[in-house]
Structures are given as C-alpha cells and as structure tokens.
C-alpha cells in the first residue's frame, strides 16, 4: 500500500516538476527485483496506467513498457545470481531504464540522446530510492 502511495506522490511530482530521473521506471524495477516478477508486473501495470493518463503517446505504450520492465527485472533476477546490494540495484536500474527507452524509441521511431542522462541519474539514485521504498 505504501509503495503505491509513493508511486502516486512521485508520479505527480514527476509530472509537475521537470526531473531528469525516471522515478516511475525505478519503482517498476524495484518491485521486480525485490518482490519478484509477479509484483514487478502488477506494479508496472499500475505505473503504466498512471502514466497513460498524463502521456499523449500511443494508447497502451506506457502500460506495456512499465509492466514489461517490472516483469523483466523480476525474471532476470530469478534466473541469474547477483549479490544483493547497491551495485546490483544500480545495474538492474541502468539496464531497466535502457530497455525502457530503447523500446520506446523503437516503437515511436524517434531518438533523444538526452535520455542518457536520465538513465545515468536514475540508476545512480536507485539505491537511495530503494531504501526509502523498503
């Protein structure tokens, strides 16, 4: 419940203040690696639904991308051994964000180099956000 509340608060903040950090994407990765793929999927669907309301992109795109990275993070975490800690969180967040933006650009056939900063900042801040969410 607290996690969903955090998602709504940060989501509203992200849509009003222009932040170079994708908090919503980080929450999807967090749910995937800390609580498993089903949780990653559920939280991703919730985040995706929230983003759909604010976004003008194609119908269902945010829903697919956020739930996709939540599920993927959970499945990969189950399949590979990785020592728990900040390093693991940064790596998962980095690749989660990378997958998110790459898939977005593939679907929309656009490219924005500025997202590289968002990927780096988001992955660096992930351990802190994950501690707060825990």
């Amino acid at each position: 419940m607290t996690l969903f509340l955090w998602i709504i608060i940060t989501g509203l903040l992200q849509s009003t203040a222009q932040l170079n950090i994708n908090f919503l994407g980080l929450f999807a990765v967090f749910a995937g690696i800390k609580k498993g793929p089903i949780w990653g999927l559920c939280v991703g669907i919730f985040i995706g639904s929230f983003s759909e309301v604010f976004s003008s992109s194609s119908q269902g795109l945010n829903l697919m991308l956020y739930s996709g990275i939540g599920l993927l993070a959970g499945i990969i975490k189950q399949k590979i051994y990785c020592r728990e800690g900040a390093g693991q969180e940064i790596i998962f967040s980095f690749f989660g964000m990378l997958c998110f933006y790459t898939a977005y650009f593939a679907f929309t056939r656009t490219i924005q180099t500025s997202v590289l900063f968002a990927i780096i900042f988001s992955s660096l801040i992930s351990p802190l956000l994950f501690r707060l969410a825990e």
Partner: protein
Amino acid sequence: MIKPQKNFPIIAVLVFIAAVTLLSQIFSSDFRVKTLDLLRIPLKLISGSVYALRDVANFMEIRAENKILKENTANLEMELLNLREAALENERLKKFLDFKESDRRKFVPALVIARDPSGLNDTVVIDGGRKDKIEKGMVVISGGGLAGRVIETGWRISRVLLITDYDSTFSGVIETTRDEGAVSGSMRAGLVMKYLDIGCNATKGDKVITSGLYGVFEKGLLIGEVVSLEQDSSGLYMNAIVKPEVDIRKLEEVLVVR
C-alpha cells in the same frame, strides 16, 4: 505434466500480454482527459508549489530581472504615450475611410499543471477547458511567441501539443528572406525548419514566423529565430535550426487564443 515452476516465465509473459491488451483499451483519449479533470486540483496545488519553490531558488535572478523590467517600464511608458497619439490618429483616419473593425481576439490565461512524466513527449496539461471555451486546435502562446496548440479538451483541463514535440509539424516562413519551410519539433534540440530553398540566404538571428498555410496556425505568429543553417543529407534543400521564442522547458503560464 505441467510444471508451474518451469513454465513460470511463459505464464508471466502471457499474463503480461493479456493485461496490457485489455487495459490499453481503457485508456482512450476521452478516459485520459476525464481522469485529468478529476486530478486537476491536486495537480494545480503541486505545480503551484513547485513554481513557488523554483522562484525562491532563483531569487537573485528574479531580483536582477525585476531591476531590468523597472527600467523597461519607464521606456515603455514613453512609447505608450506616443502610441496613444498614433491610435487616436488611426481612429480618426479609420472613420474617415469608413474602415470596418475586425473581430478582436480573446486570450484565455491558463497555468501549466502537468507534463508527460516520462519526458518523452512535449505535451503539457493546462487548467482551462471547455468551461473556458477552449477548443481543440486553438493556438497557445506564451511571452509573445508560439507555444503550441490544443489537442484535447476536458471540462476544466486541456492538453497542449508543444511546438517542440516530434509530432508537431507546421509551415513557417523566414521573416526577412520570405523562404518557406516545414517547422518540425525536435524535443530538447528545439526546432528544425526543413525543405528550405537551396539558395536560402537566411542568417543567424533571422526571425521565423508561421506562414498560415495548411491551416495549422494562423499567419504571422512568432516561432523563434534561426540559429544555424545547413544543407540536408540529400543536398536538395537547406535545413535551419530554429531556437523557439518561448522557453518550452520553463513554461508556467500560457495564453490560449480564442
């Protein structure tokens, strides 16, 4: 025999596809706008607080700006006096020529209350909608320059497609040289004016205005200024990089032209 543990990723992916397919049907344009209408007040509160905090953080900058504005006001008051004189003279001449007054435009002020959270689309949500007689397709300006156009309207909110978005393309003209081209959004990189004549001799700082062609925007709205000019990859046209007049990243208040 079915092994749930082994088949788990496949089941999860199938659930994912089913959930996304079903849920994506819900998020129609109408549903999005209605939900935003409901979220209008919390969004307004949050965005208002964010703008106030930003103003506090930029206190020194605002102080310096205030000083310049005060000086400008004094100059403008002088100009206003001259303009009043000209207006009176204009009025007299219009009467003399039996000139018919055209419809005066109305502006609806609105506050930017939300943006795309992913930052991948340059669209904003403003706190004005059908209640304020805002309609789809209306022009949105800010600080004297073109900001975008209304693409969706709710009762008390509207979504605006900013000129820097990838989906925004309209016709523009370079004020000095009268060269026409298609102005496309390029997100953070600003605007690109494509298909300019190969002999276009525009220079840095030349103003770009809307041409009024194809009915997207009316003629004569200031878009921005030329930053650089380069030949496109085919070698048949020139492309100009245009810096928008409006600082899209700092957009807080806008005017919707009715």
